[in-house]
């Protein structure tokens, strides 16, 4: 199998992603009764779709290793930016009830701002202040959304 080189890394990874999802859904769907074509159970459609997706995944993988495939490398990953952004969202979810909207928004703005290469403390602090006031005015007082504004220990 020496002739099989992964010429198109991007397509190969895409195909592998499809295949992995297909296997996951197919195996999970085995727990549900399939029924027959005339009287389908909850497992029929998921299995059919998973088989289609697996086939697509295989075609994409094959197209990535065939000798005529266009050579394409994977793009560089910037895990730092992703971590700051995703982390700030998770923190917002975790802190909204204990800290209230004001505190959670402050953390969200400060943490997500770190993702920018042009981060400055004063800029981020000012931005956080403006956005918190804006959100309180629009969402809490304007639209009356049921959001906890202050930390729970103050109530």
């Amino acid at each position: 199998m020496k002739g099989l080189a992964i010429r198109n890394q991007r397509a190969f990874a895409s195909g592998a992603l499809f295949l992995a999802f297909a296997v996951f859904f197919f195996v999970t769907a085995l727990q549900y009764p399939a029924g027959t074509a005339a009287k389908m159970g909850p497992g029929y459609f998921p299995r059919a779709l998973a088989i289609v997706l697996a086939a697509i995944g295989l075609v994409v993988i094959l197209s990535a290793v065939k000798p005529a495939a266009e050579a394409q490398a994977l793009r560089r990953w910037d895990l730092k930016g992703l971590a700051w952004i995703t982390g700030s969202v998770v923190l917002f979810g975790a802190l909204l009830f204990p800290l209230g909207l004001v505190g959670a928004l402050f953390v969200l703005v400060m943490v997500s701002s770190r993702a920018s290469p042009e981060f400055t403390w004063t800029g981020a602090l000012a931005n956080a202040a403006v956005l918190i006031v804006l959100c309180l005015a629009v969402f809490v007082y304007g639209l009356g959304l049921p959001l906890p504004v202050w930390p729970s220990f103050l109530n």
Partner: protein
Amino acid sequence: MDLFHNLAIGFATAAQPANLLYAFFGCLLGTLIGVLPGLGPLATIAMLLPITYALQPDAALIMLAGIYYGAQYGGSTTAIVVNLPGESSSVVTTIDGYQMAKQGRAGVALATAAIGSFFAGCVATLALAALAGPLTATALLFGPKEFFALMILGLILASVLSSGPFIEGIGMVVLGMLLSLVGTDLNSGSQRFAFGVPQLFDGLDFVPLAMGIFGFAEIVKNLEQDDKLSLVTQKITNLFPTREDFRRMVPAILRGTALGTLLGVLPGGGAVLSSFASYTLEKKLSRYPEQFGKGAIEGVAGPESANNAGAQTSFIPLLTLGVPSNVVMALMIGAMNIHNIHPGPEVMTKNPTLFWGLIVSMWVGNLMLLILNLPLVGLWVKLLTIPYRYLFPAIMVFCSIGVYSINSGTFEVYEAAVFCVFGYVLVKLQLPAAPLLLGLVLGPAIEENFRRAMVLSRGDAMVLFTSPLSASLLAAAAIAILLIMLPTIRARREEALQE
């Protein structure tokens, strides 16, 4: 005439002060996010969706629609002044619009885009009003197998028209459909792929997914590429096109409008496709093809008319058949569901004031946009001087509050965080996200109609091909796949869809 009677109902609804206000608000917001690169109508509508819960249904839909077509106006401003598409539908406008700006004709280019958009908006509103009745009547001929075939056609076309290899687009559609199966199976009542998590029993919510992929992951992507904005520094003075400009722009506007009106209706169509097609057409037909890329006014007039027409007529399949033609329309389904309105032929009969009010509001909105955009263009350009490092935390804040507000719970916030990571993987693998979302939205209806059709035919799949209507829809889908396999068309498509 029925049409005039219906339009009168629409005017009565659209002209209510509250609805006028929300139309204005939608258009204003649409222009704003249209001008700002990196924030599109999709993320904005997803962001505001939960908040519309507090509004009247007609006000909510009028506002959300205003965001979509308002963004088409705003997008052209950025394209012309900064050479950066504010929206993906104004990518082609950058080509000639920015050249016109460099020649000191930014004002004329902006006016051309606004006039073209306004004209196209008026025609598309009329087309929507005129076609709605007949198409709704056709919808009554549709049974489960016809709906199944129509949705398959829509999904195939959406993959054909998405960027990247066709097979990967289809893969994303199927993956989206699989994700849509999470939750309670309506036929048997049993749980699928929920793994005992009660929040998943109602299925994966569309909004956290859209927000994670098109809101958060988009920010990570934007932060990686540091495009420096190159503003055209000179003041925008002369807005008035010359007589010669008018002579050249009018036919382009007419053609762009016609093309956009047609392509918007197509499943998988909408604003982006229309603008690309119009640019190609104008370049082909022009007596001055050598001027394209160097500031040809047709290159602005055609695509800008086409994208606005396409944005509006893409409401036709949604309102008449209940089938979204693109992802923004899929979000509109979400908005309708919040207010217990089921998109499809019943909207027109059960909610005539909402239906016609929405259509007429589009015309009213276009008028507002003309006023918002031309005299105030200087203000919008100023907006572009806000650095992205202040802008993206604001997007994060609005998205997070929007996601939380879906159910007043933090589960959706974590869901959005997961899909942020997933969306970033898609960016890196260059897999298109739009087909995934369409598959997610249409998945349950496809399964439902497929199962019903199979029950009726006692498990005989051939029934899909024996009914003339469903057979021709499936044949159209097959032809689309065959066409895309042809090498010449494949090369053309790659050229047109590359970005």
